[in-house]
């Protein structure tokens, strides 16, 4: 087994641990921090069922963003939807036999790679062309887009220009999961693609990618508008109840 295989095996183990542990720590923090006041934003549902429907629409259709900015919505949605299908397509590298959904999207998945790139390029153009967006962008905001574009681009290049031995790649990942390492093909594009993916996994819990768990914990979106019907008191605020006074 080559040094290269060992490096990438360790890289992916490390990246997975950081991604899972980092996200778990963040989710734990969000879950444990109370929202002491009822602050849902209109149009707020009045029931829990309504909240679930609202979050579903936010996650699947980007409902609020659609109201806010049609271009951001268009490019953002194309990117995310493309990425989703591409990710599902990649499940074939992690299961044998291939799962039904992964098999289902094999053909369409390739085109979704282009859709994803189109969305990312649109977002990058908007970020660099609109004066307001330039003002609010840090280097990391551009780099995140560049990273995703590089991942998508290297993936598509492997599909259309310099193909790699995907049977060996699959053996490598199945081996990782079974702790039975198999050699990784030493193709430059593949190594670049994988290294960038690992980097993305490592960055995830420390970056704005926290918008993924964040949305579910956002009190303006996940609270029901029922403040008159149900008394809502956070643990730290409940302690104040006992001693509350009018001051005179």
């Amino acid at each position, binding site marked *: 087994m080559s040094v290269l295989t060992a490096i990438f095996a360790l890289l992916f183990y490390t990246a997975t641990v950081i991604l899972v542990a980092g996200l778990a720590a963040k989710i734990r923090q969000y879950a444990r921090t109370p929202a002491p006041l009822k602050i849902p934003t209109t149009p707020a549902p009045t029931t829990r069922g309504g909240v679930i429907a609202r979050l579903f629409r936010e996650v699947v259709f980007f409902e609020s963003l659609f109201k806010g900015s049609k271009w951001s919505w268009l490019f953002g949605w194309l990117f995310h939807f493309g990425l989703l299908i591409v990710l599902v397509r990649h499940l074939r590298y992690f299961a044998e036999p291939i799962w039904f959904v992964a098999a289902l999207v094999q053909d369409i998945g390739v085109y979704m790679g282009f859709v994803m790139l189109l969305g990312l390029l649109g977002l990058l153009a908007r970020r660099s062309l609109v004066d307001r967006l330039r003002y609010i962008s*840090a280097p990391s905001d551009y780099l995140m887009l560049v990273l995703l574009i590089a991942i998508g681009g290297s993936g598509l290049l492997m599909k259309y220009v310099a193909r790699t031995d995907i049977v060996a790649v699959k053996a490598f990942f199945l081996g990782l999961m079974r702790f039975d390492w198999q050699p990784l093909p030493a193709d430059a594009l593949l190594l670049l693609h994988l290294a960038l993916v690992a980097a993305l996994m490592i960055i995830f819990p420390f970056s704005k990618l926290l918008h993924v768990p964040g949305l579910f914990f956002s009190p303006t979106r996940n609270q029901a508008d029922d403040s008159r019907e149900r008394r809502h008191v*956070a643990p730290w605020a409940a302690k*104040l109840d006992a001693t509350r006074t009018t001051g005179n």
Partner: protein
Amino acid sequence: MAKAKEEFTTPTLADIPVIPVIAPDAMAHSKPFVAKPEHQEPLGFPGELVDNWKQKALDKMGELLGKYRSLPVFLDACVKCGACTDKCHYYLGTADPKNMPVARQDLLRKVYRRHFTVAGKYFPKLVGAVELSEEVIEDWYKYYHQCSECRRCSVYCPYGIDTAEITMAGREILDHIGIGQKYSNEIIAKVYKIGNNLGLPEPALADTLEGLEEEVQEDIEVDVKFPLDQEGAEVLLVTPSADFFAEPHVDGLIGYGKVFHQAGLSWTLSSYASEAANFGIFIGNYENMQKVAMRIRQAALDLGVKRIVVGECGHAWRVAYSFWNTLIGPFDFLDPNYPVPQHVCEFTYDLIQKGALKFDKEANDDKVVTFHDSCNVSRASRMGDMPGGQFVIPRELLKASCNHYVDMSPDTIHENTFCCGGGGGLLTDDLLELRVKGAVPRMEALKKVIDEDGVTHMAAICAICKSQFTKVLPYYGMGMDMIVSVHQLVGDALVMGAEH
């Protein structure tokens, strides 16, 4: 000594609203007067800048991050998509990029990243993280007092990030290191001392109400009462103290009195809780907000009322509707057949539904009326038992009392409404330029219906909106008396003495 007045040019109103090109530091000179020790200390804040302010500020930030989930989530989740950048009336009116909601959040976020996140600790330049410094504090003070906490940005944010929460945290931190805002903190101290924002003591209030009774008697020859501290009354009315004497607020109060009179219901005001407003929300301080609100619970208990009705006031209705149950509930001592609290518009609407009120709409035939949705009512609370009731009910009251009603553009009403420009603790003359410029989007929408539909009056249900418009309308060549209370129009059209 008061600072020399800043000169500024009133913006021209565009026929078709445009998003301005950023003009960095356009409002860097704008900041409100700083609170003196006597405004700070009654609220439990240090009188002046504390010695170890930097550590104190970071400690407070850490504490707030653990107490309010909105903070870590909102500070982490923003992807800088830009959807909010053209939504703030202060950005639209001033073009200062720090008035873009995301940039306003970034003033706090960059410090959060530097001191509370791994990325900002090790790669500050990469992620835009900045050490807490005097300069940052200065920016916080300026730009957290250029946000009216209206939540318009949060409607359009894909993660629901609410800049009001960030502004409140910013002000809370500033208060705790001794840099409070004079206007808000002085007012809260006044409530503790006297019972209302205006510092109107009980005898003056009693006098005012007596005067009102005489005025109404002379005007319509009906004995409408404005009772004060009446034990055993059915309803306690809490209303912003501006309703007691400011124009056009007081005409709204007369309207409530007429509705109560026609309902044949005993009601009372309280001299102890003679204020619905609660500036505790503006400074983002839970304890002060609770303390101010407690006066109302206490008054309701002392007077033995069965219901609490809240007058026309935007942020007060947010505190009442969304927070009272949390802060000063449960209300098991009140009549469970009525919502607690009940908005005066809900109260009147119920009576209309029951057929208990009769209107002569022709009384308002000299007016073409539109309605300004106040931000706290629209985006942070509700009325009635259906979503969106806060939009339907006040309009139904207007349509019941006026023959001529039109709405402004859809993107400027309901949850898309624009702040009047003076909310969130900014209704002070030391921020006049900001208030005039922040009113631009609303003025543009109003001008459109004036030009196209001949609108003569704009009704509102918020004391701050009413005061703000009275002040800024003339800057745009419109009459200050265009702004009216919803219950003024209701009261003017209400047929008094009819069978009920």
